[in-house]
């Protein structure tokens, strides 16, 4: 750094000296940084530094007799060198707050520049917002790029999203756009104007960052102040003289009209420029605002559209439900009604249907069309009066209305209807009636027919009832007669028993005392004959007794005398009774008793049964045994069997066994005594005791009678 400081010191001294000497050339050259930025600064075809800035500086340097050394480099290198005080002056530096912190600037502007945007195809970039989503080529560290109001800050400020490609000079910027590697390129107005057409690019309407291009000097350089003063002095002079070389140079680079312009033109142009810039910025802001507003409006619009769609959907649904409702109302098999009745009786329909004619006919339908109230005039007055009374009750009780009435459809047609409905009190004192009117004419017709049938049936039933009563009374009479006959029969039987037995008493009694020898001794012949008389009398007595028993049972006159007794004792009694006769025939009587069994029944009747069965068994058995068994079932029933080893019964004769006066074997008849009523009576008595008697027999081997008797104790 010492080297640099020494050089600067020497240069300052020299400059001051030269200032003093005036005509003398400075010993040390002033180092001027240049870069390539046509037309402001560039190397011409001869390799010499040319351009607006170098040429204007040359005018000043010549006037001041300064020795100049151009130090070429790219923009960044140049700025770096200026900062390092490796060069004394840098041309073409746009004035900005940031840069004023690093560099010193002269006070007079050489040129005014601004940023422009070039595109390959027709540009549609009117504001920074249009840069959205674009690839943009820019020059590194240019004030247009990274300056305070440079494009980087600009897009950030407006929240535009785009991509930047940084290169070292504007030629590369344009090259990228030309090759379509970038959508747009940012250059200053001077470069754009000079090379835009050459690269086939088109300038957009969007410009930004107007800036004053001046000379820049290193800060803290001892001779910067001197150089600034000299340069400013010359620039003021040159810019104020319309015929100066300054304007010649500008004209040469197409930045100034060739014709000499009046003096007032320049400020006017600047004013216009500033105005334009103001308008552009204003329009930019306006555009941004409009865009914002548009966005807001768009959102609002979208919301509105959604609302409208929703509204339309709601309307469609409403229409649909209206359609359903309408369909429902029109398809109910009845007339749907809803009307509000005011206190003066006027009825205002709320719901109407198109089906009045279908139900009520054309006359009433037309009448209803002109005034709904007319309908009620067609109701048969008698029914109408009733309906009004019913309606009044319903208004008070809030019950449901269910009423049937007739409507006169035409002169010769009356039809039945049924109205089902409800009433509701409205706030304004009206009553709302709603419901449905049904056509019940067919049903009524059927009801009428049914009524007719019913009446006919009733008449028929009445006739039949009278017949029946007659028959019943006849039957009752017959029954009375029968009962009377039965009573007479019983009396007859009782009398007969007495009347028949009284002479038998004498026969049996006197035969008995004769046979006993009470009267005197008898010859064998007399004894034999008297014995026959006695036996015949006894047989007759048995016969009378059996007939009386059977008759009594048949007439339900038999009385039961029930008691608790052991069946075992009863069977032993019977065996004892029959023993003499059995012994006479050489027949054994057995009783196989497993246990003592008691039963509640009519002992005398049961004994009668057992005697009948046992004596039959003994009677029809020539040899062998007669066996008794007794058994009590869990059900409480008792089973008694009497089995003999006699002749048995042929299967074909089994049916006749219990018939009266049917002794099976005709050949036995004469041999066997008996009334012929024994089994018949036995069966009657068993039935009287609620029992059952069955018989099993194998012809030639024997017979078993089985008697089943219930316990007759009443639970």
């Amino acid at each position, binding site marked *: 750094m010492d080297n640099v400081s020494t050089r600067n010191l020497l240069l300052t001294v020299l400059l001051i000296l030269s200032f003093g000497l005036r005509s003398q050339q400075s010993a040390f050259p002033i180092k001027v940084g240049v870069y390539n930025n046509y037309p402001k600064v560039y190397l011409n075809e001869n390799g010499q530094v040319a351009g607006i800035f170098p040429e204007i500086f040359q005018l000043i340097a010549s006037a001041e007799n300064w020795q100049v050394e151009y130090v070429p480099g790219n923009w960044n290198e140049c700025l770096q060198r200026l900062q390092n005080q490796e060069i004394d002056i840098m041309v073409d530096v746009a004035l900005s707050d940031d840069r004023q912190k690093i560099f010193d600037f002269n006070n007079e502007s050489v040129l005014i520049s601004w940023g422009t945007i070039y595109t390959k195809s027709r540009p549609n970039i009117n504001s920074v917002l249009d840069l959205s989503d674009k690839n943009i080529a820019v020059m590194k560290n240019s004030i247009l790029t990274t300056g305070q109001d440079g494009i980087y800050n600009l897009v950030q400020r407006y929240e535009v999203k785009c991509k930047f490609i940084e290169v070292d000079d504007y030629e590369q910027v344009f090259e990228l756009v030309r090759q379509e590697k970038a959508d747009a390129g940012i250059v200053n107005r001077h470069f754009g104007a000079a090379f835009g057409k050459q690269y086939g690019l088109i300038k957009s309407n969007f410009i930004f960052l107007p800036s004053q291009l001046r000379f820049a000097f290193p800060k803290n350089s001892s001779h910067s102040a001197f150089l600034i003063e000299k340069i400013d002095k010359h620039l003021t002079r040159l810019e104020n003289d319309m015929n100066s070389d300054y304007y010649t140079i500008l004209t040469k680079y197409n930045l100034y009209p060739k014709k000499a312009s009046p003096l007032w033109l320049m400020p006017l142009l600047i004013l216009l420029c500033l105005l334009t810039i103001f308008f552009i910025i204003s329009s930019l802001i306006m555009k941004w605002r409009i865009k914002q507003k548009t966005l807001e409006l768009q959102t609002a619009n979208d919301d509105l559209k959604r609302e409208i769609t929703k509204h339309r959907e709601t309307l469609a649904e409403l229409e649909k439900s209206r359609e359903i409702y309408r369909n429902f109302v029109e398809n109910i098999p009845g007339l749907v009604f809803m009307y509000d009745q005011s206190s003066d009786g006027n009825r205002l329909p709320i719901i109407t249907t198109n089906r009045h004619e279908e139900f009520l006919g054309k006359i009433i339908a037309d009448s209803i069309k002109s005034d709904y109230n007319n309908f009620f005039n067609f109701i048969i007055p008698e029914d109408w009066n009733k309906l009004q009374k019913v309606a009044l009750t319903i208004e008070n009780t809030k019950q449901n209305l269910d009423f049937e009435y007739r409507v006169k459809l035409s002169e010769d047609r009356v039809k039945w209807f049924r109205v089902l409905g409800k009433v509701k009190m409205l706030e304004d004192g009206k009553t709302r009636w709603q419901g449905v009117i049904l056509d019940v004419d067919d049903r009524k017709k059927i009801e009428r027919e049914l009524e007719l049938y019913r009446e006919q049936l009733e008449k028929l039933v009445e006739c039949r009832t009278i017949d029946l009563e007659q028959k019943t009374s006849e039957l009752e009479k017959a029954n009375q007669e029968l009962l009377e006959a039965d009573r007479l029969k019983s009396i007859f039987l*009782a009398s007969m*028993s*007495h009347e028949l*037995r*009284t*002479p*038998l*008493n*004498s026969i*049996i*009694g*006197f035969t*008995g*005392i004769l046979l*006993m020898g*009470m009267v005197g001794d008898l010859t064998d012949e007399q004894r034999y004959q008297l014995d026959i008389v006695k036996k015949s009398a006894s047989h007759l*007595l048995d016969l*009378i*007794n059996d007939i*009386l*028993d059977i008759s*009594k049972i048949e007439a339900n006159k*038999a*009385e039961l*005398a029930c008691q608790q007794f052991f069946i075992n004792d009863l069977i032993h009694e019977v065996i004892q009774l029959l023993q003499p006769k059995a012994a006479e025939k050489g027949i054994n009587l057995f009783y196989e008793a497993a246990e003592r069994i008691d039963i509640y029944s009519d002992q005398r009747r049961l004994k009668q049964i057992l005697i009948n069965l046992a004596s039959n068994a003994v009677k029809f058995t020539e040899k062998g045994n007669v066996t008794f068994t007794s058994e009590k079932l869990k059900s409480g029933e008792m089973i008694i069997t009497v089995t003999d080893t006699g002749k048995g019964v042929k299967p074909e004769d089994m049916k006749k066994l219990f018939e009266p006066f049917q002794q099976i074997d005709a050949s036995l008849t004469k041999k066997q005594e008996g009334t012929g009523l024994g089994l018949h009576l036995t069966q009657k008595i068993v039935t009287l005791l609620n029992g059952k008697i069955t018989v099993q027999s194998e012809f030639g081997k024997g017979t078993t009678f089985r008697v089943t008797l219930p316990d007759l104790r009443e639970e």
Partner: protein
Amino acid sequence: MKTVLLIEDNAANLYLITYMLEKSGLKVISTKEGLEGIKLALEKQPDLIIMDVQLPDINGLEATRRIRLDKRGKDLTIVALTSYAMTGDKQRALDAGCSGYMEKPINPEIFISELSKFLYPEKEK
């Protein structure tokens, strides 16, 4: 000699029973009517009364009840002659105050021995 009062309306039976009783050595008083029977029973105080149930004026059971109503007739032995066919006669006889009953028709072979039970009750015991 024991006395038997026989109340029986049937002449044949009256004769038969009287014959059998007298042959057995008993004194027999007899009548064909119930009311007369009551009178004789109370007056003669017989050892045994044989009472037929069916009588022409009042029946035997009614006659028995009347005898029993009188203190003189309380302890008399009355045997009813009941009919086999008329179920309930026996019970009715006992209910009316008879001491016992015998079934008609009479079997002469056992008649006297049956009567002895009533005539000589002490013998039985």
